[in-house]
């Protein structure tokens, strides 16, 4: 997973699959089976505010990036989240 930072051409599908694995530990595993790029985080998965914090902690660690609360205001679906991870990885916004 840490190779993501070096390999900036990582495909959206690969990030999506990694994300699905990560979210399985935080959210209901059954929801992960039906997870698609169109799945809405709050409405479909019922993600609460502190679940979001945990999700960010896990994503930042796994992808070696930093997510900003301002960027996160644009995130509504899984696809938005995947795009944000890809953007941050390309921009090299990690520590």
């Amino acid at each position, binding site marked *: 997973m840490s190779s993501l930072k070096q390999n900036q051409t990582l495909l959206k599908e690969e990030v999506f699959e990694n994300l699905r694995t990560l979210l399985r530990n935080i959210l209901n595993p059954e929801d992960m089976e039906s997870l698609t790029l169109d799945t809405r985080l709050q409405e479909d998965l019922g993600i609460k505010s*502190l679940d979001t914090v*945990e999700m960010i902690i896990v994503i930042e660690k796994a992808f070696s990036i930093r997510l900003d*609360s301002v960027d996160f205001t644009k995130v509504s679906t899984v696809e938005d989240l995947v795009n944000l991870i890809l953007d941050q990885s390309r921009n090299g916004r990690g520590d």
Partner: protein
Amino acid sequence: MKLYFKDFLLLLIYFPYRWLVQALPFQISYSMATLFGNIQYQVLPPHQKNRFFSHLDLIFGDKLDTQEKKTILRHFYVEKQKKIADLFILGRKDYENYLQTCSIEGLDYVDQVLSQGKGMIGLNFHFGFAHLIPPFALHKGYKKIIGFLVLQSPIKGVNPWVSRRILHIKHSIWKERGNFQIFSSLKSLTYLAIAQYQHLRQNYIVSAAGDGALGEKFTSVDFFNVKLKVPLGPALLSAKTGAAMVPNFVIRRKDNAHHIIFEEPIQVDNEEEETLKMAVQRYIQRLEHYVSRYPAHWGYWNRMEIEGFEGGIPLVRLVTRKPFET
């Protein structure tokens, strides 16, 4: 007609009164606030007084006689007016003189927690002039501090133009003096949590309300004669980030200056229900201690309701002024 009266009153408070507070010596401002608080107490409709007294009975049992209840009610409104004066004093150019009059205890706990590098959850309560902590900490040289406020937007039952003017004044004072971030919509609860986390990882002191009426996950803990329903948010944030919670209380002294108390840190090691509940019970016990000593300082006396019963004991829910547009 009633609405026009509220608009007029708010304009009166936020313009001529604010200007007076900004120009007059501090103690004269507090004398005016005391006068306004007493007037508010005198003109309070009987049903509101009775509701207040019934809440005192609910929490304290039959310990208080009628005169004591009246005294608490009057002090409650005087304290409310004094907090408005405090806000306007903070907006003054010489506000540092006001901060210098504050006394403090338990600052070592803050240094101890910050030395761990995981940030600190400054756990405040709807008790006294709680929002004083960020401006005071900045004044003391703690540059990495951020306050979070959830404000009603627009102010309920007020002309939109008046509402915008009032909120602009409040926002600018809080942002300028206390580095506050202000939230006002339902979705903001998520952004608030993210912002808290992001500042904690930079070893900031972030504020969180221990007795908030808003939240997504709640627990019930012992509080005087009732079970109090309070949010799990701060304890969960502590468990997820490793940042300790430091309960803090702001008490008004007889000379109207404030005494700030930082209590022993509370660290939450895991997210098990029992662990979280114990942590919440620990800081609500501290709240109980201060409410028993300074009952008029607690801001919820007119905003609580019985939600049900737990083992025959009333389960009390704290009620928000509904700041969110759902």
